């Protein structure tokens, strides 16, 4: 691993040099909530001033840039009773992600496991993922962040460079030669021992700020044991079955496919839309049978996939602990409380 350190003003230079030749996606403020707090989102940026590097968690993850809510898997030309299929992976150019937090980088690493590195890799994801240049940035833990419990408070890989704010300077970790070459465009130096000390102190300070927690010891086993537990029913009574938790989740990848005929009958398309296992018809089959007709069975399934099934397959959870689902859920259903209740705690 190669480390460098540079003056804060250099980051603007780096941004401008990169923005001159590439499309950049970064955190921006899209409005204020009722308490006047900024609401952040990932968007295309061309002006360094509009990027908010001290942002708290965005409401929505950067998912739409690699797993769009909706995309055509294929299109058909219909002619004289026959068809021709065209496949397009819907990736046109590389994108620079300027300022992803560790949790969101880890989310990508988890998605890679299932969408890139297991059987039948997904070309639609691969085409976008292989064209992402990622600049990670450190964050200030919020009250709802439990990434530390999920082991995703720091990122080991899945980015090109990762910058940490040391007050007067940025400390940068370089993983790829592309990043190394990009950094030649600005003034950087070799960090000294005092910088290392400062880095470790900064990291230690950050660690103290984590408050939310999830106890993951033996979780896969406990979820199996408590499959019939009453608490699921209680959470199910609150659940609105609206699918918001999946939509704001940086790792939810489930989807549905629909084929449609164009109204002029000359074409057709096969469209993939991200779906949510909490929606009523997620497990409904042709003919009408529904394998999970009750809200609590669907909510439970989501936790099983995240905290048991994925663990079984990849020895890690599919949850990064970003806390977005709990923050967005109007019914206040959140991972720390659900897991605690399955472990025998009381529901508020």
């Amino acid at each position: 691993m190669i480390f460098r350190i540079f003056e804060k003003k250099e980051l603007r230079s780096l941004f401008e040099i990169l923005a001159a030749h590439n499309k950049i996606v970064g955190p921006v403020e899209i409005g204020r909530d009722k308490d006047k707090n900024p609401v952040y989102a990932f968007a295309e940026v061309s002006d360094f001033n509009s990027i908010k590097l001290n942002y708290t968690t965005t409401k929505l993850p950067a998912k739409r840039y690699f797993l769009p809510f909706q995309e055509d898997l294929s299109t058909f030309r219909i002619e004289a009773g026959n068809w021709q299929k065209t496949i397009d992976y819907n990736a046109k150019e590389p994108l620079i992600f300027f300022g992803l937090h560790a949790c969101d980088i880890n989310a990508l690493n988890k998605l890679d496991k299932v969408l890139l590195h297991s059987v039948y890799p997904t070309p639609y994801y691969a085409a976008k993922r292989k064209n992402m240049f990622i600049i990670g940035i450190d964050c200030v833990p919020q009250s709802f962040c439990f990434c530390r419990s999920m082991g995703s408070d720091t990122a080991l890989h899945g980015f090109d460079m990762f910058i940490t704010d040391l007050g007067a300077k940025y400390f940068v970790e370089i993983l790829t030669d592309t990043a190394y070459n990009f950094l030649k465009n600005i003034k950087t130096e070799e960090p000294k021992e005092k910088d290392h000390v400062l880095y470790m102190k900064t990291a230690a300070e950050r660690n103290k700020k984590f408050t939310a927690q999830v106890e993951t010891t033996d979780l896969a086993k406990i979820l199996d044991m408590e499959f019939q537990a009453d608490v699921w029913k209680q959470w199910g009574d609150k659940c609105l079955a609206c699918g918001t938790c999946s939509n704001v989740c940086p790792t939810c990848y489930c989807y549905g496919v629909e084929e449609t005929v164009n109204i002029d009958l000359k074409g057709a398309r096969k469209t993939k839309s991200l779906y949510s296992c909490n929606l009523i018809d997620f497990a409904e089959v042709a003919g009408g049978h529904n394998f999970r007709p009750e809200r609590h069975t669907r909510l439970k399934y989501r936790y099983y996939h995240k905290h048991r099934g994925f663990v079984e397959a990849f020895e890690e959870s599919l949850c990064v602990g970003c806390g977005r689902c709990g923050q967005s859920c109007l019914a206040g259903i959140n991972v720390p409380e659900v897991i605690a209740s399955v472990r025998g705690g009381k529901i508020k």
Partner: protein
Amino acid sequence: MKTKEPEAKTYLGVPLYRPKVAFFEFSSCEGCQLQLVNNESTLLDFLSLVEVVNFREAMTEKSDDYTIAFVEGSITRGDEVERLKKIRKNAKILVAMGSCACFGGVNQLKNRFKNFDWVKKQVYGKHPIDSGLVRAVEDVVPVDLRIYGCPIKKEEVEKIVLHVALGKSIDIPKHPVCMECKANENICLFDLGEPCLGPITRAGCDSWCPNNRAGCWGCRGPAEDANVEYMKKIMKEKGFSEQTIMERLDCFGGFKKVK
């Protein structure tokens, strides 16, 4: 406007079913029918899939020979009941189109008043008309299919007609508006301190109102498995008054049966 007799259409070698359709309006603003003729880019393709025999907003000829009747509006007068029953008799498939036809729509708000004479006087002044309790179409005759929304979404109707032609089933979303709202990357109305029925209202509108930073009023009625009880509790906890909540739930009449 008159629909020409086009040559028989096929899709992948299978002949399409080209039904005779008729459009009728009852107590309503006729905005739903207006939606249908709005989208000019697809209008001709749309009209080639069906044979329109009755459509007051777009043509002058009339016929009672139709298979599918699209009915817009709520039923408020005695003569409307008779007309509707006749349409039901003629049609093989009766489609309630829009919130008024499906639930009574905004019109049914007047059902809350006990003193109808007072209402009439407030609304019509010196020119009163015969108008009684507002009913949804299904409260008068059986309905085969519902197209939700105030107004309806043209794309949805096009899809329904295309599916009828192809023999595909008609799948109206069962989940709530939140799905579409999140896909449209809106800030949640509750974060902005606004009430919204998105979490319990049937999707399909592409979160039309929230896209414009206006909370959902539930014009498409409840989603399947809508958790109305808990939603009311949430809204109360968020500081909205009972009156604000009930105003929204009552507005289009869609939640009458579930709340």
